[in-house]
C-alpha cells in the first residue's frame, strides 16, 4: 500500500503541470479556439517563474514567498502569449493552427533570447534556491494511504485539486460557462442573442494562457528549479493529448493527465524490480506512450468530438 501511495505521489509530480495546461486547453477550445500553442505558453510560464524567482532571490533576498511570486509571473508570461494568440485568431481571424505553431516558435525563441541577454550568453537560468517544498496538509496527510498519496505534495498540487472542480463548476454551472461553451459550439447562436463572441473567445484563450503558464511555472518551481530550452519539451503536446483524451472536460482532463503521469511514474517504478534490468531501457521509455495508444485504441467506437465550432474563426457574414 505504501508503495502504491508513493507511486501516486510521484505521479502527481508529473501530472500537475499537465493538468493545468490541459485545463487551459479546455477553456480555449470550449470557447472555439484551438490551442496548439499550449507548449509555447507553458514555456513562457516556466521562463517567467524562473526569472521572477531568480530576481526575488538575488535582489529581493531569498524568501519563502519567492516561488509564489514566480508562480504569478509564470501566469503573467503565459498571458502575454495568449494575448497574442487571441489577437491573431479572434480579432484578425487568423488560422488557429498556424498561430498556435507561431506561439510555440516565438515563445521558445523569445524566452531563450532573454535568458541569453540576462545570463550573459548562457542558455539556461541559474539554479533557484527557493522553490516549492512538499507541504503535507495537516490532518489530511495523516489519513492512511490517501494522505501519503494525495496530501503530501506541493502547493501547486493542491491548487490543481481546487482548479479542477472549480473549472467544472465554472463551465457547467454558471452563466459564464454556458456562454463560453455556446461561443465554442455555435458562435452564430451566441452572437444573435447578444453574447460577444470576441469577448468570450478572448477570455477563453487568456485563461488557457494563464493556466498553461501556471503549468510551466509548476515545472520550474517543483522539479527543475531552473529554466532551459528543454524545461518544456513536449509537455504542451501531451497536454493537448490529455485534453482530447479527457474529452474537453475538467475531470476527464484530470484523469487523462493522471494517467500520463502514472505511466511515467510506473516506468521509474519498474526499475526497482530485478526483471526490469532485462528489459531494454528503450522499451521502458516507450511504456507511457504505448499504454496511452493501447487505451485509446481500445476505447474504439466512442468517437471523440470537440466543440463544434473550434478551429473556425467566427465571421458573422459567412453563412
Amino acid at each position: 500500500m505504501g508503495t502504491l501511495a508513493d507511486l501516486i505521489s510521484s505521479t502527481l509530480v508529473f501530472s500537475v503541470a499537465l493538468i493545468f495546461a490541459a485545463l487551459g486547453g479546455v477553456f480555449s477550445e470550449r470557447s472555439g479556439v484551438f490551442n496548439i500553442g499550449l507548449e509555447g505558453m507553458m514555456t513562457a510560464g516556466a521562463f517567467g517563474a524562473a526569472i521572477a524567482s531568480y530576481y526575488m532571490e538575488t535582489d529581493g533576498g531569498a524568501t519563502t514567498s519567492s516561488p509564489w511570486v514566480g508562480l504569478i509571473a509564470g501566469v503573467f508570461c503565459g498571458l502575454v502569449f495568449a494575448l497574442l494568440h487571441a489577437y491573431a485568431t479572434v480579432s484578425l481571424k487568423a488560422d488557429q493552427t498556424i498561430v498556435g505553431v507561431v506561439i510555440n516558435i516565438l515563445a521558445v525563441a523569445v524566452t531563450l533570447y532573454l535568458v541569453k541577454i540576462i545570463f550573459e550568453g548562457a542558455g539556461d537560468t541559474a539554479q533557484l534556491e527557493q522553490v516549492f517544498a512538499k507541504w503535507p496538509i495537516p490532518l489530511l496527510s495523516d489519513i492512511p494511504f490517501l494522505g501519503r498519496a494525495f496530501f503530501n505534495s506541493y502547493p501547486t498540487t493542491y491548487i490543481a485539486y481546487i482548479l479542477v472542480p472549480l473549472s467544472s463548476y465554472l463551465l457547467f454551472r454558471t452563466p459564464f460557462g454556458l456562454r463560453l461553451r455556446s461561443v465554442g459550439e455555435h458562435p452564430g447562436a451566441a452572437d444573435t442573442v447578444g453574447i460577444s463572441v470576441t469577448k468570450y473567445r478572448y477570455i477563453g484563450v487568456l485563461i488557457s494562457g494563464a493556466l498553461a503558464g501556471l503549468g510551466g511555472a509548476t515545472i520550474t518551481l517543483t522539479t527543475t528549479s531552473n529554466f532551459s530550452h528543454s524545461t518544456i519539451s513536449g509537455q504542451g503536446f501531451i497536454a493537448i493529448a490529455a485534453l482530447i483524451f479527457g474529452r474537453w472536460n475538467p475531470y476527464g482532463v484530470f484523469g487523462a493527465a493522471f494517467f500520463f503521469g502514472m505511466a511515467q511514474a510506473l516506468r521509474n517504478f519498474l526499475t526497482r524490480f530485478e526483471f526490469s534490468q532485462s528489459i531494454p531501457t528503450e522499451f521502458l521509455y516507450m511504456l507511457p506512450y504505448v499504454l496511452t495508444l493501447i487505451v485509446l485504441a481500445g476505447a474504439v467506437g466512442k468517437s471523440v468530438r470537440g466543440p463544434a465550432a473550434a478551429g473556425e474563426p467566427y465571421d458573422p457574414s459567412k453563412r
Partner: protein
Amino acid sequence: MNKAAEIFNKPSTYIPFIAIVLGLLCGGIVMWIGGYDPFAAYGALWKTVFGTKYDFGETIVAITPILFTGLAVGFAFRAGIFNIGADGQYIIGMTAATFIGLKVHLPAFIHAPLALIVGMLCGALWGALVGWLKAYRGVNEVISAIMLNWIALYLSNYILRDFLVKKGEQKTPNIDDTASLSIGWLQNFMEGARMDWGIWIGLLCVVIFYVLLWRTKQGYELRAVGHNADAAKAAGINIKASFIKTMMISGAFAGLGGVFSVLGVFHYQVVQAASAGYGFDGIAVALLGGNHPIGILLGAILFGGLTYGSAGMNFEADVPSEIVRIVIGSIIFFVASHGLIRTVIQPLFKKRKSRERKGG
C-alpha cells in the same frame, strides 16, 4: 487550415513578401532592444548563406529535411489530416535506411536505391499506423501521432543500440559506401559541403505532390475527403482507405527526409535523447507555404536559409541565434494574420476590391 492555401491562391501574393519584410523588421527591433546591431547581424546572415560555395551548399543541406517534412505535413493537410507525426516518420525512415546501409551488402546501383526505398516505406508504414488508428479505432490523429513520435524515437534508439552501434560507441559506424547518396563531385565543387541527392529528390517530390494531388484520380479523391468526408463517402469513396493512403504518402515524404540525412549527409546515425524536431519545423514550413508544394518549397528555402544563416549571425555578430526563430515566427504570424497587413499596409498601396465570394 485552408485559409493559408487561400492566401496564396489570392491575387495578393505580395502578402508573404510584406510578411518577410515585417518579420525581419521585428527581428531587427528585438535585436536593437537587446543591444545588438541588427545591420551587422543581417549582414552576417546574408554572408553566411551566400558567402562561399561551402556555405551555400550547407544551406541546401539545412533546407532539405524541412522540405521533406513540410511536404509530408502539407500533403496530409490537403487530405484533411493534421500530421503532427512527421517527426516520428522521419526518424523511422532514417533508422531503416541506416539498417539497410549497414547490414546489407550489395553493389551500389542496387544498395543505395534499396536503402532509400526501404527507408521511405518504413516512414510510410509508420504514417499508415496513424491513418489506421484513425480509420479503424477512431483515435484522434493528433494524439496518436504525438505518442508515435516518442515511440519512434525510442524504438529507433533500441534498434541502434542493440543491432547497429558497436560496443563503446554512441553512434553507428558509417554506412557502406555503396549505400551512399552523396554526390562526390558536387561536394568537391561546393568546397566540401555535404551535397547529396536529397534536394533533387525533394524537388521531384514537389512535382509528385502536385501531380498526385491535382492531376490524378487518387489525389482528387483524397482532396474530396479532405474538404468534405461526408460528401466523399456518399460519392463512393472509401474514407478509411483514404486516411491510410494519405498517411502513407505523407509518411513516405517524411521518411525520405530521414533517409537522406543518413545516406546523403551524415552516413551514420546517433542515439539521441530527443529528435531534431524537423517534423515540427515541417508544420511551420507547410503552413508558411500554404500547403501548396511550390509554397512549401519556398517556405523551406526561407526557413532553411534563415536557420543556417543564424549560425553566422551568432558567430560573427554575437547575436543569439534565437533571433532567427523570432524572425521566422513573426513571418508566419504576419502571413497568417493577413488581415493585419490588409488593414494596416494595404491602404498604402491601392485598395484592391477582389474579395472572394463565399457563402451558402
